[in-house]
């Protein structure tokens, strides 16, 4: 494991902590006042700060420190977490996430925003001690920064980071005698005494005496041993805790004594060298050296292994300290201790595994399933009695394979929570931009789905959320005029339904303006001017390519991509999307997605001599049509009558161009499928071979996209079978309304 890997683990943990942070803040925003929620939020920021400190991510540490200071005020009931306060904190959480991303892969950070939030946080902190870890170049609080609270319960006390540069005005400060003797571990864990002394010098006026008495002779010394110790006289307005905070990550690896002194006792006992520091020069030096790669790269490599080991222990030590500190802070509260214990227990029960390894395992299990199917097939072919012990053993093997497969799939299953949380940030930011007040309510965020699905879900969902905020929800004025709550609500829910995950996005906005949609569709040549469409069909027009009802292109949703892109992304995931809208009451988008993209339960059918697999989730029922129930309709359309209703009959072989003329429905089997618009279609196939779980093999990755076909699989006899894209086939059969799908019939 090299340094980068450890750093990567840190960033993974950051992601978790950021999620904790956000969900905690949202809970507080909803009125939760459980001290443990506040503690969890504080812990999250503190852990990020701790880890970032270990890796020298100064910007992140500085911001996290200010954030943490403000959270500490909330924790100690000095600051009431009002909506306004939480608004600042939620924004700060966003900036913290940006800073983390920037540290990870150089993502963008809006520095002006970060600076203004530092100011706001400081204002909120009610004059709490400024951060020793903050950089001298950090922004200064505007003296008259208004405290964005509505309780009027406190006055902000401005403070300045600049004072670090000039040395504290020490007239009314306290003098401390600090004895600091690092041990070897302090250095091996990546800390540096010189930097700690520099930080110390920033919080007051300092004179220092270096004790080099224990330095052995040159040839007897161990270059990595700690021989120097220091006695420091520090005059500062800060408290002893602030001094200890400088040694926060080193306290366990040094002997540290801090004694408050009588002012008169200063300078007498030890021959001190008063040191007027030019910190700006030092900072520059540091910045330069951090930017420049170490000159002796080879040497660094050699020590990298040792460094790695120590960094791990440092991270562990930091984590342990966080817990210790937490426990101490909440010693009165038994619940906090219980929480820590629970967290520790939970941590012991999970391991981090590289996704590649899981994927490899899934692939292998997929091969095992195929292999087992092939074995079964050949046994069946060679064993006519069907009762031999081999046959029974095979059944057990099949059962076991299935269980292994389910268990492996469960490893990849993840709750949708992270994606949902990302959406709350988008709602916040976009609502701010367009001047609307919108609340995002999430439900069922622990619903699990395959990681691939989650990863691919974020983009379409982001687009839909943006749309809902920008176009769906009205402005507060319009809402009030319509007798609604000026604050709009967007509800995002996830649930499992018949082997799929269903995600619903409901807004309480104005709903779809059908007149305008219809007119736009006519203007854009999507439908004929006299087309007679149902409300549902009009609503679904918004998924048509190139369709946008926004009168003006906005920064938020008018990016040249429309809901057709969303629809295509969802379809690419093997999902369906539909919309229902009530004018004046809002719209509901419903997405139904498969739980995994690796396997699928399918019905194996024969069409014109070809073997196809139809996803079982799409099939409502199967039936053997009788001649009397088939009705001709128009030139070459046919309907089948099922329980007193008519359903269009779709000849799969014809749509896919497997045959040139329509097959006789009475000789085949009809699969009744639910199409995305909610209507039903009867797909005609020649025969049903059986039902089985198949391993999905991407056609795009191995061949190329074939219209009407979603993917491929390998059957027990080793042949490749195509998996039908039911929605594409249904759309192709539907007729004139949607052009791209029309081309499917022609090219397919």
């Amino acid at each position: 494991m090299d340094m980068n890997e450890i750093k990567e683990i840190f960033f993974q943990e950051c992601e978790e902590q950021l999620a904790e942070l956000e969900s905690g803040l949202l809970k507080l925003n909803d009125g939760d006042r459980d001290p443990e929620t506040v503690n969890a939020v504080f812990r999250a920021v503190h852990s990020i700060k701790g880890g970032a400190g270990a890796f020298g991510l100064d910007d992140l540490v500085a911001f996290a420190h200010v954030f943490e200071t403000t959270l500490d005020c909330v924790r100690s009931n000095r600051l009431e977490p009002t909506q306004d306060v939480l608004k600042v904190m939620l924004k700060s959480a966003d900036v913290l996430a940006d800073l983390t991303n920037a540290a990870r892969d150089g993502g963008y950070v809006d520095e002006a925003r970060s600076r203004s939030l530092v100011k706001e946080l400081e204002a909120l902190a009610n004059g709490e001690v400024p951060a020793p870890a903050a950089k001298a170049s950090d922004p200064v609080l505007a003296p008259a920064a208004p405290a964005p609270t509505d309780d009027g319960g406190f006055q902000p006390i401005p403070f300045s980071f600049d004072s670090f540069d000039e040395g504290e005005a020490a007239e009314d400060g306290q003098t401390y005698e600090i004895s600091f003797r690092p041990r070897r571990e302090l250095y091996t864990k990546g800390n540096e005494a010189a930097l700690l002394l520099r930080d110390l010098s920033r919080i007051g006026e300092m004179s220092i005496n270096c004790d080099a008495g224990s330095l052995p002779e040159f040839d007897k010394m161990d270059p990595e041993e700690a021989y120097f110790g220091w006695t420091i006289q520090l005059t500062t307005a800060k408290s002893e805790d602030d001094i200890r905070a400088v040694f926060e990550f080193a306290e366990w690896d040094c002997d540290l004594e801090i004694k408050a002194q009588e002012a008169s006792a200063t300078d007498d006992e030890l021959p001190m060298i008063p040191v007027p520091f030019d910190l700006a020069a030092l900072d520059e030096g540091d910045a330069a050296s951090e930017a420049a790669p170490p000159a002796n790269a080879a040497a660094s490599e050699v020590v990298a292994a040792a460094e790695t080991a120590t960094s791990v222990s440092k991270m562990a030590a930091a984590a342990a300290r966080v817990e210790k500190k937490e426990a101490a802070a909440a010693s009165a509260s038994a619940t906090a201790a219980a929480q820590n214990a629970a967290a520790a227990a939970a941590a012991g029960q999970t391991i981090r595994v590289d996704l590649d390894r899981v994927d490899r395992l899934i692939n292998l299990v997929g091969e095992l399933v195929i292999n087992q199917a092939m074995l079964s097939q050949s046994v069946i072919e060679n064993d006519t009695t069907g009762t031999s012990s081999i046959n029974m053993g095979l059944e057990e093997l099949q059962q076991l394979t299935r269980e292994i497969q389910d268990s492996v799939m469960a490893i990849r299953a993840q709750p949708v929570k992270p994606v949902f949380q990302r959406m709350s940030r988008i709602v916040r930011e976009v609502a701010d931009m367009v001047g609307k007040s919108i609340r995002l309510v999430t439900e069922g965020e622990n619903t699990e789905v395959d990681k691939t699905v989650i990863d691919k879900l974020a983009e379409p969902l982001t687009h839909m959320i943006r749309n809902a905020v920008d176009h769906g929800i009205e402005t507060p004025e319009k809402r009030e005029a319509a007798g609604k709550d000026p604050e709009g609500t967007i509800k995002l829910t996830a649930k499992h339904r018949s082997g799929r995950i269903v995600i619903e996005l409901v807004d309480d906005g104005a709903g779809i303006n059908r007149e305008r949609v219809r007119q736009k569709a006519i203007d854009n040549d999507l439908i004929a001017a006299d087309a007679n469409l149902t409300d549902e069909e009009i609503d679904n027009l918004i998924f048509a390519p190139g369709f946008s009802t926004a009168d003006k292109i906005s920064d938020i949703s008018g990016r040249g991509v429309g809901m057709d892109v969303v629809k295509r992304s969802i379809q690419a995931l093997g999902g369906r999307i539909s919309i229902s809208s009530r004018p004046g009451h809002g719209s509901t988008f419903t997405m139904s997605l498969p739980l995994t993209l690796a396997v699928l339960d399918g019905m194996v059918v024969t069409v014109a001599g070809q073997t196809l697999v139809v996803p079982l989730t799409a099939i409502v029922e199967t039936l053997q049509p009788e001649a009397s129930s088939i009705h001709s309709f128009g030139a070459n359309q046919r309907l089948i009558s099922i329980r007193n209703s008519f359903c269009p009959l779709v000849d799969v072989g014809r749509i896919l161009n497997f045959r040139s003329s329509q097959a006789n429905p009475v000789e085949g089997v009809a699969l009744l499928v639910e199409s995305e618009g909610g209507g039903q279609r009867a797909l005609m196939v020649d025969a049903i071979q059986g039902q089985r779980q198949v391993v999905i093999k991407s056609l795009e990755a191995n061949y190329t996209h074939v219209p009407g076909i979603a993917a491929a699989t390998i059957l027990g006899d080793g042949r490749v079978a195509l998996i039908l894209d039911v929605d594409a086939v249904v759309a192709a059969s539907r007729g004139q309304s949607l052009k791209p799908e029309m081309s499917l019939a022609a090219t397919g």
Partner: protein
Amino acid sequence: MASKKAAQESLTLSSVLDLNEASVLHGKLTELRGRNLKIDASQVERLGAQCVQIIVAAARAWQADKKAFVVEKSSDAFEKTLQLIGLDPNQLTAKEN
């Protein structure tokens, strides 16, 4: 780093003198033991306490050997760090006699 020139040697210190560099620096100085030495610290951008320990111990050793040990050129960062950790630059000097 070290250039042979009669009995006078010179050593240019690396730009980063942190934990990783401590043993390397100790090794280099050990090789130069017994000769008059000029140190060029003008490239130093970051100086850790452990490398300072080595330089101080070396200055004492050179003093004991009665060889010259002089920090001839030094960067701002080098000087500031020495100040910061409470060392007099004279402690890094040994005279030949």
